């Protein structure tokens, strides 16, 4: 067995150890309010249809909010990045926006829009908007000066330059922003459901707490983690596939 694999296997001892400690602590507490890992697995098995259904709702809202942010923020970011006069002056506004975390706007949105889908999507869109805007702006205004020289020397029109050179070269940074935005969307989707409970996995967690079903709640958390891992891994795969040229774009092969 290679050293790599040996380390990978031995490393499993850490999470296993934690689970063992957890089980021991649960057995010592002896209360249904502190379930051990065994109970959580059982709850997972019995509840997974419900959990998956609720999770689906959460993911759908996250996707819609993310889409709204993409459609609005990428053009805006490009505009602010290219029209330097406007972009430079409005930079402090963007920085100010970044200091206001999404949970802080939830009560306000609740006042405006109640607790329904619309309210949650607004909050999710806000959370996704910040990294998307900042990264798109950054990518658009820090395009390497050489590229514009190359474009001109190849006799490209302004529009052609934007489409064929600026856009592909900005993509890596924009996609990084999108990856952060996707993670944010998921996070905030769950959080918004916990504070504005109607449906979704966040509401499921709240209900589990209200009915003292801690094991079901922990099972729900496990699924949230799984969803996050899968989505992030998927995005990463797509990134590597479309932007392979950026990640290999290091020193020449000599």
């Amino acid at each position, binding site marked *: 067995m290679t050293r790599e694999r040996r380390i990978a296997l031995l*490393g499993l001892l*850490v999470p296993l150890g934690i689970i063992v400690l957890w089980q021991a602590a649960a057995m010592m507490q002896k209360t249904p309010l502190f379930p051990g890992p065994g109970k959580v697995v059982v709850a997972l098995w019995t509840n997974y249809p419900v959990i998956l259904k609720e999770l689906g709702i959460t993911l759908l809202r996250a996707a819609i909010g993310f889409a709204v942010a993409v459609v609005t923020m990428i053009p805006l970011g490009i505009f602010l990045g290219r029209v330097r*006069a406007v972009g430079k*002056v409005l930079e402090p506004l963007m920085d100010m926006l970044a200091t*206001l975390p999404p949970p*802080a706007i939830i009560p*306000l949105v609740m006042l405006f829009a109640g607790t329904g889908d619309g309210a949650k999507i607004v909050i999710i869109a806000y959370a996704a908007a910040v990294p998307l805007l900042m990264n798109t702006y950054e990518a658009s205004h820090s395009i390497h000066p050489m590229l514009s020289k190359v474009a001109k020397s190849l006799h490209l029109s302004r529009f052609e330059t934007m489409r064929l050179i600026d856009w592909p070269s900005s993509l890596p940074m924009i996609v990084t922003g999108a990856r952060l935005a996707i993670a944010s969307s998921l996070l905030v989707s769950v959080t918004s459901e916990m504070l504005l409970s109607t449906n979704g996995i966040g509401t499921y967690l709240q209900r*589990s707490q209200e009915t003292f079903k801690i094991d079901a709640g922990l099972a729900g958390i496990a699924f949230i983690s799984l*969803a996050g891992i899968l989505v992030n891994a998927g995005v990463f795969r797509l990134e590597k596939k479309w932007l392979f040229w950026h990640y290999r774009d290091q020193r020449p092969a000599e």
Partner: protein
Amino acid sequence: MNAALLAERLRVPICIALVLGSWQVIFALGVVPEKYFPSIPTIAVAFWQMLTDGTVISAWATTFLRALIGLVGAAVLGIALAILSDLSPVLSRGIRYVSDVLQPIPPAAFVPMAVFMLGLGTKLYAFVIILVTVWPPYLNGVAALAGVGPVQLNTGRMFGLSNWGLLWRVKLPAALPEIFTGIRYAATISLIAVIVSEMLAGRDGIGFMIFKKAFALRTPEVFGLMFLVAINGVLLNGLVNLLRRRLTGWHIGMMERPE
């Protein structure tokens, strides 16, 4: 001086003026009902009211301190774990499994369950904040320690440093800038974790206060408190940056030097 340069120099006041100005315009136009969109003076008055009757100050302090202490605890724990991980690859892998599973979970999700296991006080906040905030400093620390160049390490060995000495005198200082990047990110997360915990299970703090005011339909206060949350973020980041300059000023100078 032409207009563009002038605009750039004055951009912070311009932005502030833009925000306040358009706000007042929207208010004056009455497009949105006043109970949802109060005028700036109304917000200012309400804010002042909260300040002077002491409710906001204590909430502010509570929230800020929770975020700060949580951040410090998470940073220290993260760095400690990173050092241990640097010494033991097995431990590093093991913790990686744990962080991969825990990182995607929003802090809010932990709160309902943690309330049962840890009650409603400091232990709850400490648990939730640290569970969520420890990862950026830890992950950055591990990457930075592993990424210290062979040239620096060999130089250290040449000066007779043991492995232990190498860690403290060469690797850790070299890793500090990247660790601080992680701490800056953690500062944002820490504040979010505190606010969200206060909203869900709190009895004090700004998070709790915002929801209380929202339920009481006191919109001006809600806006005022949102502004406060943003200021908290700026303050926390400011503190982290101060420490960063003191501890890694050499790196900042190096990075900011023009070509």
